[in-house]
């Protein structure tokens, strides 16, 4: 049976593909927004830079390094 270009099956598949695409876009936007919210809510983050810094050493009263 030949399927016409505008067969009902095509419309249904297009609808499903569009739905999946929009869901994925929404998911990406949500994860991006969540990342921004988490990062901006965490204060200034200091990475370990392979050099001993007394200011970050909790044993001598420094910060833990996670936040300022």
């Amino acid at each position, binding site marked *: *049976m030949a399927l016409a270009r505008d067969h009902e*099956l095509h419309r*249904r*598949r297009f*609808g*499903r593909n*569009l*739905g*999946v695409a929009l869901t994925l876009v929404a998911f990406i936007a*949500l*994860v991006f*927004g*969540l990342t*921004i*919210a*988490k990062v901006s*809510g965490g204060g200034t983050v200091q990475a370990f830079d392979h050099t001993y810094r007394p200011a970050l050493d909790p044993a001598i009263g420094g910060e833990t390094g996670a936040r300022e």
Partner: protein
Amino acid sequence: MSDIRVDITHKTEPAEAGFGDFVALLKPRVMSLVVFTALVGLLVAPNTLHPIEAFAAIVFIALGAGAAGALNMWWDADIDRQMRRTARRPVPAGTVEPGEALGFGLGLSLIAVFMLGLAANWLAAGLLAFTIFFYAVVYTMWLKRATPQNIVIGGAAGAFPPMIGWVVATGHVGIEAVLMFALIFMWTPPHFWALALFMNDDYTRAKVPMLTVTHGRRATRVHVLVYTLALVPVALGAGLTSIGGPVYLAVALVLNAIFVAGALRLSQRTEVEAEADRYRAEKSFFKFSLLYLFGHFLAFLIEATPWAALLRSQFAYWGL
């Protein structure tokens, strides 16, 4: 010319599922109740959360609830097919294959739990995982076909969302979260038994041991009254915690008085009376039960607004 004829109009394959069929697998109406109660649990908690984190948490709680619904539809396709109320669901209707529903439910469950753990905290994610397990395995696969107490114990699954919302905001389970859980837990049996009173034929046909099928309608009516009376102290008790207040107590008093009156009316009705008016009282009790739950959670929400805090301080000023 060949004698072989092919009937091209004959449908040999099941209809291919559309996007809407997969959305229907998530039980959107149940999901809306989950979203509302979880949102209230989150908003009435003492801690504040970044709006995007709160939004993401609600989305993932809703997805988890939807995933549990898909797993329920996968397992229950055989009985759904026999019940008028559920025969048009995607799996019994043949638009979604059982394997697709199973994969969809499992995949969404994993995504929802993992993402809630990242978005909020792992206690909330653990509670969501337990809720999905409880609904899909304990209720759907075990209790539903085994005991007339199915919806009493299974009601716990629907009671978890406000507790998860609270844990998302606070990171721990408080007395307020337990009372919100208890409110839905105690509300579920009268709500579903009222439905069973006028949908009894469905459950009998599907051989689901609802109380109406195993113990009869008379016993069910008495059970509705007993559970409604047991619900009252839970509903009013929640008003005496930090999430309650004068607005909540006033709303709860009115809603509980109407609910108890409705349950009393149901308990006194005979089957002849019920059939004569086509279960009008049972149907209105069922509809009111939805308003009852919505009203309580809306009152919790109102109590969390600055306006309610102002009212509370005014009451304190008057020495009330």
